């Protein structure tokens, strides 16, 4: 019995969608608008995340050692640092490698290279470059170096300098930018999603307003609330499913274009990102579209059902 009623509701939902013609498609397009905004926000978040990651990658804490610091002690410190949960990776560069890298970096800077050639000793010291998982964790790494570093190393005199304190201002500023960008992005997302949901809700309400007489007649012939409401909710779900498919399809050429023309500017290849995350994006859109359609229909019909 319940199964028959359910089948009838599903069938009526599809039939109503087909027979409402342009009104159904207007509602679908409005849901497409909402889903497009959600997709744009997902893609923008990816761009923002990639930009932040690129900046984060440029930040590290570098510990410079005096020439008399034994390499095995430095390696001991390296493994201690690697055990810290905040640390993503530690790279050791010995004095010779550091000098080579310095020469390469300044290969066009003739006076510097000449000055370097005139020195009998290597003025560039061995160093450890420490990368933390998050920018705000560099302070913990620096604190570890201050408290435990000399003990692990055997002597505080082996440390020439830790550049965290020179970089602290930049790191703090970067931290503020990242958290600000995330907060701003979240608020912007919230604003667009809420305003778009409200518009879509009202669009669906309008399509149901047209059927308000019909809802009254259904009630008069003795239809239960679910029998009246069910097909409208199924219609709402159909709006969501079709709108998801349209949105996914529309973003394919858009991301292809962005991928081939804007990868340098955006920092990531949009098409690659879109294709790699298509399942998650589809799931988010489908869920948003269907839930939005069903809930909007449910609320809109409720108004006329209680008459």
């Amino acid at each position: 019995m319940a199964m028959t009623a359910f089948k009838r509701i599903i069938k009526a939902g599809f039939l109503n969608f087909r027979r409402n013609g342009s009104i159904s498609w207007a509602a679908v397009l409005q849901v497409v608008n909402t889903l497009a905004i959600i997709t744009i926000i997902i893609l923008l978040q990816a761009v923002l995340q990639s930009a932040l990651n690129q900046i984060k990658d440029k930040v590290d804490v570098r510990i410079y050692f005096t020439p008399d610091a034994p390499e095995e002690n430095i390696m001991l410190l390296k493994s201690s640092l690697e055990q810290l949960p905040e640390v993503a990776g530690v790279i050791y560069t010995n004095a010779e490698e550091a000098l080579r890298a310095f020469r390469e970096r300044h290969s066009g800077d003739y006076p510097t290279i000449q000055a370097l050639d005139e020195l009998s000793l290597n003025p560039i010291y061995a160093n450890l470059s420490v990368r933390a998982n998050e920018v705000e964790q560099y302070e913990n790494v620096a604190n570890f170096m201050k408290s435990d570093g000399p003990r692990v190393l055997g002597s505080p005199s082996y440390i020439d300098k830790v550049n965290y304190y020179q970089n602290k201002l930049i790191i703090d500023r970067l931290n503020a930018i990242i958290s600000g960008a995330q907060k701003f992005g979240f608020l912007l997302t919230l604003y667009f999603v809420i305003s778009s949901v409200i518009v879509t809700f009202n669009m669906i309400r309008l399509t149901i307003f047209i059927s308000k007489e019909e809802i009254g007649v259904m009630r008069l012939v003795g239809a239960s609330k679910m029998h009246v409401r069910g097909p409208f909710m199924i219609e709402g779900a159909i709006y969501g499913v079709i709108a998801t498919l349209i949105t996914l399809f529309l973003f394919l050429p858009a991301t292809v274009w962005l991928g081939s023309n804007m990868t340098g500017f955006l920092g990531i290849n949009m098409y690659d990102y879109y294709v790699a995350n298509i399942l998650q994006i589809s799931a988010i859109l489908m869920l948003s579209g269907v839930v939005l359609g069903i809930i909007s229909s449910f609320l809109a019909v409720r108004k006329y059902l209680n008459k």
Partner: protein
Amino acid sequence: MIYFNNVSKIYKDATALEDVTFTVESGEFVSIVGHSGAGKTTLTKLILSEELPSDGTVFFESVNVHKLRPEELTRLRRRIGMVFQDFKLLPHKTAYENIAFAMEAVGKSDEEIASDVPHVLELVDLSHRHSHFPQELSGGEQQRLAIARAIINQPELIIADEPTGNLDPVNTYEIVQILKRINDLGTTVILTTHNRGVIESVGKRVITMEKGKIVRDTKHHGKEV
């Protein structure tokens, strides 16, 4: 079957019904006649609990219809078939689906729907129009379809609110004859109209209303009830 006890209905600035009391017995055919605004439609809306009375009570058998919970009201409405002046058909459903919907609403099976709908369409002479939408039917056909929908679940009571108001004399005659046949089969019928000719052709009990009050209640040929 229907009991109105001192029922009044007052809208913001107008009295639609004033102290109305009458009874309709099971199997009766009662015509309620009066000019527009006499309170005929308000009366039918009160039976269906579409409106609440400002005063008094309305009973369907032993049940006060205005004390029913929503699901009980749904069940009550399934025992009443409604026919309206403006037909109130479902515009996005075909003639067949309009009738099938009323059967689905009371939980009839697909087999019952498949066997009963063609039968009732034949009864109102609409078999050849089963796949047409209401807007593709003439006024008379729409009203016949509305009657078919009203009787499909074999209700105990048919309320026909100005069913001939939008029809020409030929269709009016046909509709009245169909309603009489339904009554002859034992269903109680309440018919509201402002057309004296309709009352004459029915030839049964007539309640005359004026400005929300019952001014006359007679069996045919002027005999007071």
